[in-house]
């Protein structure tokens, strides 16, 4: 079946290779000259709103600062204090669960839904339905979940109606993080299902016809046709997921914290740790540690992106 796929090599940015002769043509020289004035404005904006704040964050992480007034040089103290802090370690584990645990669940569900919905009648409608949770703001959903899972909430009432009286205490501190993970999985699965289905839509139907003639099951069609031809999309999605998941914040805060307060530390992730250091409602802001945590997130994001791209690296298949 794989032989039916025409695989061709392209450059990394998807363009065809250009010969040395073409590079030096007057047209290309003129084009290169124009490159500079076109790129510089964008580069300047990028430097101003992305690179400069990043460098400032790095500088901040080496100081103690209450958010205004003078800074005090702290060297690497913010980092050492943070690494010794058990709550930072809890935040690390929770961040890992969100990025890897929820990520695995989201991608598994999205793949499963892609297989199930591929040949289903009314797939456009189904796609709209699975996408729906993504349209509702996460903050609204997290507030709603709080009410659904209250002891007298809808979930327990429905369970009682069907005769289930022994159920977990959904919002107990020991269970809250699990409920959050489930909520995030539910929120995100639809988006990735829709992206994966869009990727599947561009696969020529004759490949599936050939697979069918050869007696491939639904899973085999996914394994040998669908997945290889959507691998580039999966790679991009995995990067997008890692970046988004590392920054998960509002769902945790709204679901688990009361107005103006911090949530219990057993559900903190890196973003919450950083927020708590900068905006502890009862204390003086410590932007130094918050920035140090931000630097760690930046490094982790870079690392995860490289890893995700490496694991899924392959020349793009074309057809």
């Amino acid at each position, binding site marked *: 079946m794989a032989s039916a796929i025409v695989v061709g090599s392209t450059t990394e940015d998807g363009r065809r290779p250009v010969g040395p002769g073409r590079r030096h043509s007057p047209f290309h020289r003129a084009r290169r000259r*124009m490159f500079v*004035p*076109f790129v510089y*404005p*964008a580069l*300047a*904006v990028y430097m*101003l*709103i992305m690179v400069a704040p990043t460098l400032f964050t790095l500088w901040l992480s080496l100081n103690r600062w*209450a*958010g*205004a*007034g*003078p800074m005090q040089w702290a060297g690497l*103290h913010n980092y*050492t*204090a943070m690494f*010794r*802090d*058990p*709550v930072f370690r809890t935040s690390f584990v929770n961040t890992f669960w969100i990025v890897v645990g929820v990520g695995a669940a989201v991608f598994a569900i999205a793949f499963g839904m892609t297989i199930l919905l591929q040949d289903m009648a009314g797939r456009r409608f189904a796609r709209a339905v699975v996408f729906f949770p993504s349209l509702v703001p996460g903050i609204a959903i997290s507030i709603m979940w*709080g*009410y659904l*899972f*209250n*002891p*007298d909430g809808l979930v327990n009432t429905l369970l009682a109606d069907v005769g289930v009286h022994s159920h977990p*205490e*959904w*919002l*107990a*501190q020991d*269970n809250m993080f699990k409920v959050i993970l489930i909520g995030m999985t539910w929120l995100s699965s639809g988006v990735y299902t829709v992206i994966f289905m869009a990727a599947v839509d561009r696969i020529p139907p004759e490949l599936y016809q050939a697979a069918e003639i050869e007696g491939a099951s639904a899973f085999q069609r996914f394994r040998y046709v669908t997945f290889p031809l959507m691998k580039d999309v999966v790679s991009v999605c995995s990067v997008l997921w890692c970046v988004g998941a590392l920054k998960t914040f509002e769902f945790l805060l709204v679901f*688990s914290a*009361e*107005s*103006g*307060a*911090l949530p*219990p*530390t*057993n559900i903190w992730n890196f973003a919450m740790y950083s927020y*708590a*250091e900068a*905006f*502890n*409602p*009862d*204390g*003086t*802001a*410590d932007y130094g540690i918050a920035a140090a945590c931000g630097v760690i997130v930046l490094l982790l994001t870079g690392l995860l992106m490289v890893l995700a791209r490496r694991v899924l690296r392959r020349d793009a298949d074309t057809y």
Partner: protein
Amino acid sequence: MRRRQPPLLAGVALAGVALCASACGGSSSGGAGAAGSGAGGDHLTIWSQWLKGQPGQQFLQAAVDDFQKQTGIKVTVQWKGNAVVKSLLPALNSPDVPTDVVETSASQIQNVLYPAGGMLDLTSAYQQQVPGTGQTVAQVVGPAATSLATPTDAAGQTTGGPVVVPYWASATGVVFYNGQNFPALESAAPKDWDAFFSILDAQKAKNRRPLAQDGSVTSYNAVFYNDFLASILGPDALNKAETDKTGQTWKQPGYLQAAQLVERLAKGGYFTDGYDASKFPAMENKWANNDADFNVNGSWLPSEVGPVAAPGFDYRSFAFPAVAGHSAPPLNVTVSGIGVLKSSKHQAAAEKFAAFLLQRGYQEQVATEMQNIPIAKDVPAPPAVQAVKQAIDAGQVNTVRSPASLADYNAKIYFGLDDKLIFGKLSAAQFIDSMSSDSADYWKSKG
């Protein structure tokens, strides 16, 4: 066609840069300094903790309108809500701070804005006369509230002069009940926890879980241990144990006794079902519908549950009782009011406005319109919290405060273990052991 695209893109890019440049370096005409500079007279800018439509906003707007009419000073108020301090902090780095006055709780001002060097010492403002009272600001506010309006150092001791002129107060550790169900309590509140346990046990005997507790609010949970401990060992006992870098203070007598009282409540079936697995305000709403008998909460509770409460609910309260054989814990009070920015060019007008709010008429409106506790002595509070007001007027106020530097400790160590204690996941002895060892580890991690 493709050749036409680059100029278009370049135009868009340049327009973007121009837009950003104009946005980033835009005029600061909204700033406090600029606002008053060209108008000829004073122009006061206030950033307030209230949002439009809230009773506090309506009260303050009416007072501002009167102030403008009577003094000719123009006032612009921006209703920022709870995030007022968070919004203001970054602006302190600007040479043109966008407000003269911040109107919020003293603790927020002291913990966040004062350490950043942004607040004016208001000692001189406290010497002003309050119009129509024959008293100075210091006399109207009183020594206890003045202390609460003054910043503290790392040891929790007041330092410098007050940075807030408060006009209202709130208190936590207040026991609320429905006066219709317990009419006798209004004249004879339980004198200690033994007496209160008797009342709770009588309710338990009627198959009720008498105490409503929103366990999802860690600070509400901590009120029990805080106040038991303050009653047994005094209001500074918690600070002493928390700042002991060896953690050994937790092992001293009294700390365990306070934990045992919380354990008794947790394991004795006193708290409403679901208190440890629900989302605020589920449990206080249950109480407001008579599904529980008592709720230890803050003086704001009646206005908070008012819209969902059972018809005719008669809000009554008494202060957190003493542990038998000890004094009652002093009330934990937070004061809120006017702070003036050091950078303000209209400090005299700002101080005048602060004194203006302390006139008796406005203080009465704090009770009648805002449904809160007026700061001025002898001005009555709403009936639901009048008992609290009397305790404040009598000076039974906890002036020992947790230093801002302990906020991180509380968030990472104390609140978490206290939650486990009140949810019955830790015994009193385990709580003390954990507090002791985790405190030592925490301070070690801080180096």
